[in-house]
């Protein structure tokens, strides 16, 4: 079943000189974990905003084509109906924090309050999410007195607490340490197992290689590659679009080009172990 569908979309910001997208089409199935990659400025965040309805509801522009959330046009839906179904984690954790709550605990409850969730249920969900994100030690801190990475975790927690069926996550780990980053990916994996539809923008390509089902590469107003993760992330071409390849794939390509031909370019660790185990 299609969860989201973009049909022949062209878009230009009101103050923009050039179109961001031209005739872009794409569909995302329910339960899929899709990574969107591409150089900065390629339109990843704009696409997220369109899928969430922030464009055109809050930010206007010239838009052609249509975007469907399960068969209903997002362009015609109410933003509040959309926020029940789609959770959005912003790219910049420094702006996601509400700025009006005194503790991390209340901050996480903020979205739930707005959704009108009953108090008992609210407490249960906050406690659960605090545990899931391992931020027990932060719950009494003031949101403005957090380190960059701590803020990012809290921003993620406050969205996950609302338990949306579709999640749009824009660079969720940019401020996180390596272990924290892996933990977020593990949480994303759990959400996927709950059959949530997840759209993830991320530069940490090694982790995309491990976790995503599908990769979409944006460049020059449209999609250049759309396919399974292992197919896309073993292509040398990807680097010419300003995005990195996983270290493992880079190693495979380098070895393939300079030492001997490989039957397959690996993109994750287990594949690389297979490829190299007879060579060392």
């Amino acid at each position: 079943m299609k969860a989201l569908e973009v049909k022949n979309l062209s878009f230009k910001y009101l103050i923009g000189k050039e179109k961001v997208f031209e005739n872009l089409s794409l569909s995302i199935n329910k339960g899929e974990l899709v990574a969107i990659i591409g150089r900065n400025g390629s339109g990843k965040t704009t696409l997220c905003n369109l899928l969430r309805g922030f464009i055109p509801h809050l930010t206007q522009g010239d838009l052609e084509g249509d975007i469907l959330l399960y068969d209903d046009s997002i362009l015609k839906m109410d933003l509040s109906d959309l926020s029940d179904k789609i959770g959005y984690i912003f790219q910049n954790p420094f702006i996601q924090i509400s700025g009006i709550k005194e503790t991390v605990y209340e901050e996480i409850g903020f979205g739930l309050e707005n959704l009108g969730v009953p108090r008992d249920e609210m407490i249960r969900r906050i406690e659960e999410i605090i545990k899931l994100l391992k931020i027990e030690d932060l719950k009494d801190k003031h949101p403005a007195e957090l380190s960059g990475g701590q803020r990012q975790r809290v921003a993620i927690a406050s969205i996950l607490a609302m338990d949306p069926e579709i999640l749009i996550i824009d660079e969720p780990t940019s401020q996180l340490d390596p272990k924290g980053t892996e933990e977020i990916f593990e949480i994303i994996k759990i959400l996927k197992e709950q059959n949530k539809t997840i759209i993830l923008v991320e530069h940490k390509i090694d982790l995309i290689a491990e976790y995503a089902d599908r990769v979409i590469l944006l460049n020059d107003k449209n999609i250049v590659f759309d396919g399974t993760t292992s197919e896309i992330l073993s292509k040398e071409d990807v680097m010419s679009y300003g995005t990195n390849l996983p270290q493992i794939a880079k190693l495979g390509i380098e070895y393939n080009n300079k030492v001997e031909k490989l039957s397959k370019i690996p993109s994750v660790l287990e594949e690389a172990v297979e490829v190299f185990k007879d060579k060392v």
Partner: protein
Amino acid sequence: MNGIKIDNVVFNYPNGFCAIDDVSLEITKGEKIAIIGQNGAGKTTFVKMMNNLLRPTEGTITVDGIDLKELTTAQISKKVGYVFQNPGDQLFNRTVYDEIAYNPRYNKLEESKVKELVEDAAELCGITQYLKSNPYDLPFGLRKFVTIACVIAMGSEYIILDEPTAGQDLDGLVLQSKIIDELIKRNKTVIIITHDMEFVIDNFDRIVVMANKKIVADSTKKEIFWDFEILDKASLKQPYISKLAHDLKMKNYIIDIEGFIAEVKNK
């Protein structure tokens, strides 16, 4: 004595929270050094003390032999420049040009000299075409380059970059490597905080690891990325190439593609 010398520094935030607990470190003039480690370890707090944005609760910091307590804000910016983790904490002018020109103008330099400094810094940071833009109209990744340019134009001898790699694409990372090389060529000292292990491996040799208010290691990248105890303590991970070498039970200390291929060829 040249360099930054940090002696037994403690830092408590006004709410009483201790973020740095008895830390010492020496940084040699002209070197480049990466500070890595877990979220909340105290990295930002630590480096902010190196340019007086925060004052140590206890201990002393000297820069080229001068106690930081004796320097005014204007004097300190000549010595140590800090690029904020969040560009929003640093940017407040209406155009990128004015933003980069702010410190040189504050120091009452001739407008022609200011222009020269702004153009040089903008060029190095790849933002020449945005000089007339409002910094807030630029995407996050580019805004970071504006803040880097500001500190370059200040002419500080020690340059601290707090997570410049966050949210950068491949081109952005390549440009940052270039900037670091150029700064070292200009005899600057570069101190960087980053969570990007591959970037660390490509650009740095000396690595300082922080965890839980302290420095837990200060060594070469080869040592650090094969020290599982330290990695675990500081919430770090081995780089993927090291993980592969580890899984394949290859000789220790492989940390990059070059090293891996050389080792395979050796067989």
